[in-house]
Each structure stands twice: as C-alpha cells, then as structure tokens.
C-alpha cells in the first residue's frame, strides 16, 4: 500500500518537475500513466518494482523527458519480465537485475537459463554480470559464455571474476584481441580453456585440457 502511494506520488513529482520546466503535454500525461501502469503491474505480480523506480529516478536525474523515461522503464520491465520467465520458477532480485543487463547485451534466453542451471544453488548473477562485462569489453558472446561456464564448474570466487575482467581490460588496452586475452587469462586461471567459437554452452568440464601455460 505504502509503495503504491509512493509510486503515485513519484509520478506526480515527475509531473511537478516537468511542469516547472515546461507545460505538461498530452504525451507527458500518457507517459506518466504508462509508468504508473508498469509499476503497478510489477507490484501486482510480485516483481521488483523498485528496479523500475530506480530507472525513473535515473531518468529524472538526467533530465530526460517523460516519454523517454517511460520508454526506458517499459524496456527494463520487458527485460526483467523476460528474465523472470526464463529463470522461473524461482529467481532472486539480483539475478533479475543482472539477467536484464545480460539480455541488453544480446545474451540469449537459453544461454541465461543454462548459466543459471550450471550455477546450481549458487547465485547466478555474478556470472551474468561477468558475461556482460566481457561482452562490453569486446569478447564474443560465445567465448564469454564458455568462460563463465568454465568458471562456474570450478567454483571461482567472485573477486576472481572481477579481477579477471580488470586484467582483460588491461590486456586489451595493451593491444591483445579481447578473445585472445580472455583465452590467455582463462588458461592462467584455470589451467585449461580451449579458445574458439562454440555453437552453444557446453556442460561443465568440457573444454579443458589444452593448457598453453602453466598455472602460476
């Protein structure tokens, strides 16, 4: 109930903000209604509407128009909803958030589901974010997914995932291709990672054995 009130008031605040800047247009009003509908729908379905509220706050802070904020919220809602369906029947909020980001960089639904299954009882969101960071650094999606799968099977710690992404960024800045850098780093880390294009995600344990470097 409180959240509904807050949402309604937040939308009114949006209106107040825009009214102070410019007259409220019909499209602004329509956008506000779209936002409110999306948030209420999330609340009704037990999905984390706070993710949408955060996007509203971001758009407001960045001075975006209300139709643009509504578009961003709608896109995020679509992605979060998709991740919820992909990972059903149970999913955590961080997994929804990270999964939505993964979708935004082009990770497919089967790939997400497969990563989550591979993670087992462990949270999958660190691996989703790992793939997102790799892809953003120029690694091909197949390689990033393959690396994530390998890291899951070896139960690599979260800090190691972070360090790997940072190391890769340095390697790429130094002139290596992203895929080659990832392959090199993975080989150093887990002692076995066969680079090359893959058509999908392989089961845990597959892909090891061809170490080009010994582990430090």
């Amino acid at each position, binding site marked *: 109930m409180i959240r509904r009130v807050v949402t309604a008031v937040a939308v009114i605040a949006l209106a107040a*903000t825009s009214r102070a800047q410019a007259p409220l247009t019909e499209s602004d009003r329509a956008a*506000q209604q779209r936002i409110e509908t999306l948030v209420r729908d999330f609340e009704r379905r*037990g999905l984390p509407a706070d993710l949408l509220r955060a996007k509203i706050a971001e758009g407001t802070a960045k001075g975006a128009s209300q139709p643009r904020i509504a578009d961003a919220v709608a896109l995020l809602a679509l992605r979060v909803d998709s991740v*919820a369906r992909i990972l059903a029947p*149970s999913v955590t*909020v961080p997994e929804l958030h990270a999964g939505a980001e993964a979708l935004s960089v082009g990770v497919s639904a089967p790939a997400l589901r497969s990563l989550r299954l591979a993670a087992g009882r462990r949270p999958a969101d660190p691996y989703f974010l790992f793939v997102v960071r790799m892809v953003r650094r120029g690694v091909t999606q197949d390689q990033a997914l393959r690396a994530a799968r390998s890291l899951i099977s070896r139960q690599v710690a979260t*800090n190691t995932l972070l360090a790997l992404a940072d190391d890769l960024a340095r390697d790429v800045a130094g002139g290596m291709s992203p895929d080659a850098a990832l392959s090199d780093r993975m080989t150093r880390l887990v002692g076995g990672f066969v680079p090359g294009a893959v058509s999908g995600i392989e089961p845990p344990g597959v892909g090891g054995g061809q170490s080009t470097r010994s582990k430090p």
Partner: protein
Amino acid sequence: MTEPGHDSEAHMIETRLASALAAMRAPPVIDRGAAARIAAQAVLANAPSRSANRWGMRAAAALAVVTLGALAMGTRNPAGTSTRTVPVAAAPVMLQSAPSAASTRLVARSGIAARPIMFELDAPGARTVQVIGDFNDWSRNASSMQRGTDGRWRVTTLLPPGRYVYAFLIDGERFQRDLRRDPIEDRDFGVTGSELVIGEAP
C-alpha cells in the same frame, strides 16, 4: 508433576534447538564469493528502500507544491487522477530474495563491511560537483563533492561490495563520466556513465 506428553514435547523442542544450533555452528556452505554476493544483493535490495524513502519525502514536497499550484490555477493535476491497469499475465516466478531489511541484517551478521570509496574529478572551473548514481538513487544532492586545495573535487562514500553505475554532475547541468573507470553506454537517456565494481575486502 509432569503432564503426559510434556516430555516428548520438551524432547522435540530440544531436538529442534540442537539442530538449529548445529546448523548455526556449522561452517557456511557458501564461499567468500557467495558472501560477497549477499552483500551485493543487499545493495540492490537496499537501494529501492532508500529510493522509496527519498521519493516519498521529495514527492510529498512536490505534491504539496503541485497541489498549491493547482489550487492557485483553479485546476487539478491530471497526474493525480487514477490510471487504468492493463491486465498482464502473471509470470510464474517466485522471488527468492528476502525483504531488504532481512538482507541488511544478514550482511551485518556476515561481517561484510562497506568500504570507503573515493570519487575524484579534475574540474578546476566547476562551481559545484556531485557524484550521482544508483548507489544514491541518482540524487542530485546526496553526494556533493568538495574541492581540495589542489583544485580536484573529491568525496568518499561507504559502499558495500557490488556493481554500481554513476556519473559526475558539474554545476548542476553537465554530466561527465569518470575517466578512470570503464564507461557504460546509456542507451536509455544518452548520458554515458562509469562502472564501479567493488569486490569483497581481502
């Protein structure tokens, strides 16, 4: 005198207590990385709470302004009217995460402390600089930076492990990303920010 069944009930309670204590004393099945994820989850879970609180306060103030304005103009704000809800099929999903308060307590028990993170910007001509991002709900007033004697702007914020997106707001009107960190393209609003990922303390 003991009532019939009391012994068995007491035994059952003792058994449950012993089981619970054993579970509490047992080494955690999660690794250090998983613990960090708990903290990151709390980041996500907490952010909306703060957001809601701040939204509530700001929105209440805005509501008052809007209402006064509407009264002065002899009209009503259309945004205040009710909206229709489009029926959407419910997703077959069950959220695993606990409410934010529970997550926060869990983090406290796990001993994962927030770490001081210093944001720094070289903007000698700026009059004001804020760092705004998802860790402060994109508030323009939450994290004002201070100009040092060297002319650089700085602010230190305590942040738990997690991933954050942020940008600097210069003079309340111009955004700039942190050049020391990875850029994050913003396809939604066109303001490129920076990504900050904080791991657990060593």
